[in-house]
C-alpha cells in the first residue's frame, strides 16, 4: 500500500542519486573526500629551431587522451606562427605551426595540464593487423627462433612469454642472446624488439613518454614497448622485460609519425619540462571527452561562477539541516519554535562560530523578551507589535555590534548575520508560550530549538558532508529519500517512551 509506494519512491530517489554519484566517481575521477589533493602536472614541450628565412612548417606530435591521465587543459604559445591542431579520430594528434618566413632562433611552446587518475581498463579495441614476419639473415634468424622457442617453452601466457623473451635477449649469457644483442642496430633496441616480436607473431609498437616525478627540465621522451597480447596493449620495460608501465608514465606519442617533423627550419628539437602542483581536487576542471562525461559534468557545480558556487555551498547544506530537524522532531521528539527556525539559526551559527552564536542568540532573545513583556502592558495590536519587536531586535543587534567594535571583539560583529525575522518570531512565540503555559514550557521549547540548532550546526558545518553535497549535488535525492522515509515513520518518538512509561509498567 502507501508505505510500499513511499519505499519504492525513496529507493528510486536514493539509487538515482547514489548512481549518479558513483558514475561521477568512476568517470570523472571525483574523489569521495576533500582531503584528497590532486597532483596536477604541468608539462611543457619546448620546440626550438632556427628559421632559415623560408616558409616554415613544424609539426609536433601531441598526446591523445593518454592512458592513466585526465587532460585538464592544454595551450599553445605560437609567437606569430599560424597554428592548426589536427585531431581526426583515427590519426595521431599533431600541432602544426606555419609561418611564411621564419628566421633566427625561435621557440614554440605547448603546455599540458594533466591529472593522474586511477586506471580503468580500456575496452579492447580491434586487434592490430598481424605484422609481416621480418626476414632476418642467418644466423640471426636461427638465434631469434631459438630464443623465441625457449621463452615460449617456459611461459604460462603471452605476458610471460614477452617478458621472458626480452629478459633472455637482454640478459642472456648464451650465444644466441649475444648474437641478437650484437645485431641491434645503432642502439635502437626497442624497434628491433618489435621486429623480433613480429617474428613471434605479436603486434608491438614503441611509444614515447615521460615519467612524471619531481620537477624536471630539458628532458627527452623515453621509449617504452607496447605489445598487443590478444586483448589490449600491454606495456613492457624494453630493458628488463617486466610487464606494465612505469607509474606516472605519460605517453606522449606513438612511433608514427615522428614526434617532430620540421621543414624550412634548422636544428628543430623538442625538450620537455614539468612541474607538479598540488591542487585541491575541487578546483580541478575537467575536459569532457565523452557525452556521458559531459552530461555528468553538467550535473556539477564547478562551471558556475565562484560566487554562485559559494551560495550553493551553503544552500546544499540546508537539506542536511532539515534532515536533522526531521530526526529531532520525528524520532527524538524535541519541541522547537517553528519548523525550520533552528536551521536558519544554525546557518547564522556558521558565520558567528558556535559559542558566540549561542551567546548572542541568548542575549538578543532574552533582551527582546524583556522588552516584549513591556509591550504586553501597552496592549499593542499584533502586527504593529511584531513590527516593534522586529525594530527592537535590529536595534539590539546593532547595539551588540557597536559595543563589540568599540571593545575590539570580533565575533560580536557577526551578529548582523542573524536572521532577524526569525529572532522576532521566536521572541513573540516565546512570550505567548510563556503567558499561556508558563516560563518552564517557554524555556524548554527555547532550549529545544537551540539544541536542534546546535545539532544542525554540527551537521551543516561537517566539512566532509559539505564537500560531498557540493561535489555530488545529486545526493539531494538521497536526502529527499531520507525525508520520504521519515514521512512514513510511524514508530515512537524517544520522548514518547518517557511520556508513556507508566503504560509500559502496568500489567496488561
Amino acid at each position, binding site marked *: 500500500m502507501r508505505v510500499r509506494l513511499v519505499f519504492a519512491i525513496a529507493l528510486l530517489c536514493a539509487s538515482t542519486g547514489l548512481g549518479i554519484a558513483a558514475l561521477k566517481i568512476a568517470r570523472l575521477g571525483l574523489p569521495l573526500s576533500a582531503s584528497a589533493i590532486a597532483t596536477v602536472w604541468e608539462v611543457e614541450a619546448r620546440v626550438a629551431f632556427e628559421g632559415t628565412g623560408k616558409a616554415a612548417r613544424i609539426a609536433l606530435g601531441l598526446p591523445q587522451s593518454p592512458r592513466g591521465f585526465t587532460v585538464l587543459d592544454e595551450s599553445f604559445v605560437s609567437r606569430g606562427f599560424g597554428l592548426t591542431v589536427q585531431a581526426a579520430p583515427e590519426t595521431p594528434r599533431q600541432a602544426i605551426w606555419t609561418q611564411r618566413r621564419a628566421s633566427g632562433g625561435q621557440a614554440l611552446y605547448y603546455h599540458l595540464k594533466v591529472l593522474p587518475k586511477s586506471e580503468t581498463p580500456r575496452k579492447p579495441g580491434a586487434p592490430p593487423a598481424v605484422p609481416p614476419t621480418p626476414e632476418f639473415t642467418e644466423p640471426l634468424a636461427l638465434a631469434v627462433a631459438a630464443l623465441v622457442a625457449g621463452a615460449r617453452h617456459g611461459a604460462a601466457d603471452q605476458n610471460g612469454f614477452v617478458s621472458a623473451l626480452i629478459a633472455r635477449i637482454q640478459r642472456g649469457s648464451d650465444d644466441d642472446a649475444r648474437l641478437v644483442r650484437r645485431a641491434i642496430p645503432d642502439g635502437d633496441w626497442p624497434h628491433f624488439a618489435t621486429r623480433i616480436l613480429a617474428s613471434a607473431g605479436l603486434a608491438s609498437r614503441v611509444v614515447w613518454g615521460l615519467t612524471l616525478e619531481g620537477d624536471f627540465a630539458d628532458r627527452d621522451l623515453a621509449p617504452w614497448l607496447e605489445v598487443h597480447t590478444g586483448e589490449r596493449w600491454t606495456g613492457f620495460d624494453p630493458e628488463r622485460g617486466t610487464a606494465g608501465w612505469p607509474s606516472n608514465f605519460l605517453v606522449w606519442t606513438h612511433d608514427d609519425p615522428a614526434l617532430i617533423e620540421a621543414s624550412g627550419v634548422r636544428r628543430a628539437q623538442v625538450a620537455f619540462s614539468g612541474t607538479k602542483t598540488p591542487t585541491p581536487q575541487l578546483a580541478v576542471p575537467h575536459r569532457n571527452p565523452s557525452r556521458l562525461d559531459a552530461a555528468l559534468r553538467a550535473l556539477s557545480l564547478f562551471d558556475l561562477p565562484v560566487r554562485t558556487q559559494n551560495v550553493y555551498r551553503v544552500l546544499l547544506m540546508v537539506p542536511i539541516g532539515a534532515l536533522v530537524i526531521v530526526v529531532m522532531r520525528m524520532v527524538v*521528539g524535541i519541541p522547537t519554535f517553528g519548523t525550520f527556525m533552528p536551521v536558519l539559526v544554525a546557518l547564522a551559527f556558521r558565520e558567528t562560530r558556535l559559542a558566540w552564536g549561542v551567546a548572542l542568540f541568548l542575549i538578543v532573545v532574552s533582551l527582546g523578551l524583556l522588552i516584549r513583556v513591556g509591550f504586553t502592558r501597552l496592549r499593542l495590536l499584533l502586527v504593529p507589535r511584531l513590527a516593534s519587536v522586529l525594530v527592537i531586535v535590529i536595534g539590539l543587534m546593532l547595539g551588540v555590534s557597536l559595543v563589540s567594535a568599540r571593545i575590539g571583539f570580533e565575533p560580536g560583529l557577526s551578529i548582523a548575520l542573524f536572521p532577524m525575522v526569525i529572532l522576532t518570531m521566536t521572541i513573540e512565540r516565546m512570550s505567548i508560550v510563556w503567558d499561556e503555559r508558563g516560563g518552564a514550557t517557554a524555556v524548554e521549547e527555547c532550549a529545544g530549538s537551540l539544541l536542534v540548532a546546535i545539532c544542525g550546526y554540527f551537521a551543516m558545518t561537517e566539512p566532509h558532508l559539505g564537500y560531498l553535497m557540493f561535489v555530488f549535488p545529486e545526493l539531494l535525492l538521497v536526502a529527499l529519500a531520507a525525508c520520504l522515509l521519515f514521512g512514513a515513520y510511524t514508530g*515512537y518518538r524517544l520522548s514518547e517512551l518517557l511520556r508513556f512509561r507508566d*503504560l509500559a509498567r502496568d500489567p496488561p
Partner: protein
Amino acid sequence: MFGLWRALRRRGVLGLNARNRGAIMGHNPRRCYPLVDDKLKTKRLALAAGIAVPELYAVLETEHDLGTLHARLAERPQFVIKPAHGSGGSGVLVVDGREGSNYLTADGRAVAPGQIAYHASNILSGIYSLGGVPDRAMVEYRVHIARIFERVSHHGVPDIRLLVYRGMPAMAMLRLPTRRSAGKANLHQGAVGVGIDLATGVTRGGVWLNRGVGAHPDFGTPLAGIAIPDWSRLLELGARCYELTGLGYLGVDVVLDPERGPLLLELNARPGLAIQIANREGLERRLAAIDALAPLPGDVAARLALLPALIAA
C-alpha cells in the same frame, strides 16, 4: 530503552507519528477540518443537528465590536470569551461575575473591562489561532459545574473527552481542572485526565502531567469510581458527531451542565494521546478492532449496539 519500546508496542500504545499518519491522515479528510477548527461553524452544525451546545451570546468580528462589548454583556454576569479558531484551550477567558465595574475571572482575579476588550482584541488579531490568521471571538454561556464533579475540580468545569473513531466511541476520559491548569480542562496545561470505562461510564485511575495518579493533585480526593450521569446519551452524542463532521478520528468534548445537561463544547480533529495513559490502555488494539468491524452501520443506534462486543474483545 528497547525494553520500554517493546513494552509499549506490546500494550498497543499509539505514538504521535502513527496517529498522524494512520488515524488522522487516513480518516480525517482535510476539507472537513474547517468544520471543527472554527468553533462557530461547529456550533451552527450541532444546532442544526439538534445537539445541545452552550448558548452563543455574541460574536466579535472587528475592533469596532469591542467598544460595545461592555454594554452588550451588561445582562450577562457570567460568560466565556474564546477564540473561534483556538486550539488546546488557549485564549479562553471565563468570567464568573462582577465586582463594581470590574469582572471577576474563574480563578478569582478582578479584571477591568479594558482588559477584557484587550483580550478580545488579541483574539481578533489571531494570536491564539492556528497560523496566526485573524480570528473571531465568541462570547457564550458559562457552563456550570455538575454536582458530582465538585469534589474533584479546581475552579473550572470538567469536561468529558470522547475519542470517536469511524463513528464509534473508542475511548473516553474525564478532564478535571487543577490549580496548575488555572481552571482549564486541557491536559497539557496541567489538568487531570481520568479514564472512563466505556461500558459503564464509571471513572478509573487518572493521569496528571503524563504520569498516572489515583487522587486529585489539589484535593487528594480519589479519582476512580465517579459514575458519569447520562452516559449512554453522551456516547450517542459523541457518535453522532461523526456524521456531523465526516472526521473519522475525532475528539468530542462534552460538558455536563447541571441545568442544561450534556452540551457539546467543541470538536477536535487532532485529539491527543494522553487519553491512553488515563485509561492505562493503548489505543492501537481498540482502533484495529473497530477497523475490523468496518463497514460500520450508518445508523447511530445500530453502531452503538456493537460497542459491548467491541469492549469485550
